[in-house]
Every structure is written in structure tokens, then in C-alpha cells.
């Protein structure tokens, strides 16, 4: 009998990995899948979920995860940083040439051979849908490049140190806030895949969405009142992903928007024209 983890169990492992420091977007989904598979393998041997996760994370901890992420980043970015210097030096014409030259042509993939050897569980009964053949590196240079709200909504809090309106102490504000009425459409700031849809209740980000754009960039949209997409869905730049709200640690209806580059939150203002 093969066990398949339920949503709650997957979420538990996802949170555990986040706690251990998994924050590099191109690895998040597959490391989660890997650890779910390991856990299922343990449970197939007759262990309970908590015994299984305990033994899985005993072998693989914070240090191993950190090393794995660092190694992946260093192996995949050696060339690209050099590329970027060239791009800066030779301006736009070079970018166009570079894009034509470096984008590998897409080829047809054999979709028939899905799950030939599923990790211990059977997935035949599960609905699965393809979310795209484009790889993270094929969409290489598509950083977020617009405001997350259409219309001229005022930015009420910028990136950097500020007095937190709920916690009443000085805190780093790692995104930007736009004051807007509940129900204002929130749009994806570049093409990507929805990697997270979560509701943290009355604390933190409330209802929030994370979109992964390429190997470097993710964006986060929080305090939403409603979500218009699903986890795993592909979205286009400008597509409505949710509606402005007042959920989580929020005092007035607004959108808190973050841009995350290689796991580090950066100033979103650098990624749109004011």
C-alpha cells in the first residue's frame, strides 16, 4: 500500500523546510517534493507521519540545506553575472542580440512518460495538469517590471526602516505599501508560476500569493481580500491574481508588495516606473 501525503502534511513539510532556510525559489518546489517522497517512503515502512518526518529531517538539516542552496546558486550563476557585465557595457543592442543567441529553442517533450516510477505512492487517481514546459532558465531575464496595481494608487510606505503601525516599534519594511480600496484588482508584475497561496489568518501577511518569475525573481502580494488564481497556475504579466484587502497584520486596506531576488527582499521601486 502506497501512502500519499495530504495537504496538511505537505504544508507541514513546506513550513519545516522554510524554517530550515529553504528560500531559493528555483529549488523550493522540487526540494519539497523530494522530502514528501522521503517521508512517504518512511511511512510505507509502517512509521507514523511524525516519526517519518523526524527521521527524514535528522539526516538532512539546516547546514546541508544551506550548502545545497549555495552550491546551486554558485553553479548556475557563474556565467550569468559575467553576461550581465557585458550587457551593461554594450547597452540595448547587445541585449537583443544576446537574447536571440542565448535563448535555447524549445523542443517537444515526451509527456507520455509521466510517473513511470512514482515515488512510493500511486498518482493515477490524482488530477494533474501541466503547468508549462518553459524552464526557469529559458525565461532567464524577466524581472518584475510594472506596478502591481493599475491606476495611480499612492505608495504609503516605502522600503526600509519604519515604525510598524501594528507592532509599534522600529522594523525593516521589506516591501512597499499601496493604499487602495478593498476589491481593487492586483496584477502579476511579470509572467510566472504561482508557487504559494496562503492565509496566515490575523497575523503576518494575511491572504498572500507568491509568484515565481524566473531563476532569480519572485514577487509577493499580501493582505488580500480574495485570490483569483490557484497554486501551480501560470500567470501572465498584468493578469489579475487577487483583490486588495485588509487581512493579516494590517490596519487599513492596502497592498503590501515585495520583490524577492535570489531569496533576498529588494526594493520594489527599482522594478517599476513611478
Amino acid at each position, binding site marked *: 500500500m502506497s501512502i500519499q501525503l495530504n495537504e496538511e502534511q*505537505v504544508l507541514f513539510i513546506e513550513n519545516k523546510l522554510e524554517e530550515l532556510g529553504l528560500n531559493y525559489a528555483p529549488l523550493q518546489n522540487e526540494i519539497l*517534493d*523530494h522530502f514528501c517522497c522521503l517521508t512517504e517512503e518512511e511511512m510505507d515502512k509502517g512509521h507514523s507521519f511524525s516519526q517519518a518526518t523526524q527521521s527524514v529531517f535528522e539526516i538532512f538539516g539546516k547546514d546541508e540545506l544551506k550548502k545545497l542552496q549555495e552550491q*546551486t546558486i554558485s*553553479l548556475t550563476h557563474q556565467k550569468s553575472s559575467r553576461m550581465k557585465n557585458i550587457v551593461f557595457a554594450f547597452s540595448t543592442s547587445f541585449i537583443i542580440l544576446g537574447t536571440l543567441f542565448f535563448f535555447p529553442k524549445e523542443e517537444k517533450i515526451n509527456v507520455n512518460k509521466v510517473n513511470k516510477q*512514482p515515488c512510493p505512492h500511486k498518482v493515477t487517481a490524482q488530477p494533474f495538469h501541466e*503547468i508549462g514546459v518553459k524552464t*526557469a532558465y529559458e525565461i532567464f531575464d524577466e524581472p518584475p517590471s510594472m506596478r502591481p496595481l493599475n491606476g495611480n494608487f499612492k505608495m504609503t510606505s516605502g522600503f526600509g526602516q519604519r515604525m510598524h503601525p501594528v507592532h509599534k516599534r522600529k522594523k525593516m519594511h521589506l516591501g512597499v505599501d499601496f493604499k487602495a480600496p478593498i476589491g481593487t484588482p492586483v496584477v502579476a508584475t511579470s509572467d510566472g508560476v504561482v508557487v504559494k497561496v496562503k492565509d496566515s489568518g490575523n497575523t503576518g501577511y494575511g491572504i498572500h500569493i507568491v509568484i515565481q518569475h524566473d531563476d532569480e525573481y519572485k514577487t509577493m502580494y499580501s493582505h488580500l481580500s480574495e485570490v483569483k488564481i490557484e497554486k501551480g497556475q501560470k500567470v501572465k504579466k498584468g493578469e489579475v491574481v487577487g483583490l486588495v484587502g485588509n487581512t493579516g497584520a494590517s490596519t487599513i486596506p492596502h497592498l503590501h508588495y515585495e520583490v524577492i531576488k535570489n531569496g533576498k527582499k529588494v526594493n520594489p521601486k527599482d522594478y517599476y516606473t513611478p
Partner: protein
Amino acid sequence: MLSNELTKGTLQTIILKLLAEEQKMYGYEITQHVKSISEGKMVVTEGALYPTLHKLEKNGLVRTQQVMIGKRMRKYYSLTAKGKKANVNKLAEFQEFIQAMHLILKPKTTTS
């Protein structure tokens, strides 16, 4: 069990060969496959596998496809045309390496 260091140097060759045969695999599946066909002698760790897979992708030797499996996303790897070529070259190179190792490790025959 073989040491990590020996496995690491040959990991790209192993991954390319497996993908050439299986067409499409995900990370965990690769670790299980290697374990089973090497009869448990070789263990590919997560720490070695994923950085190598991402490097292969970055270099255009493999492409990926993400598929929703139950409540989570699974990333499948498959060879590109460039990857297929690299597989043939790497295998040939490795065969040569094995032959060379044979010659080096052969006990010295003394003629008296």
C-alpha cells in the same frame, strides 16, 4: 558504499545516461534508481544531485517540466538535443577513463 567524492565526479555522466534511457525523471526518482541499479553501492545525496541538475539545465543539456502531483509540484528533467550529444561523448570519455584506470591499477608483472 562508494565514497561521495567518487560519485560526485561522475554524477553528470550518470544523470545524462539515466535520462537518455528513461526519457523523463524527477530528482527523487533519480536517487532511487541509482541506488537500485547499483545494488545499494552508490548513493546520490540531495546535496550533490540538485546543484548538478540545475547546472545541467543552465548549460542547456536538460530541460524541465513542472507537473502538479496531488498537492505539490513535481519537476521532471529530460535531455535536450545538446544533452543527448553530451551523453554520447561523456559515456565514451568515461569508458576510456575506465580502461585507463584498469591499466593503472593492474598489478605490476615482474619478469625475471
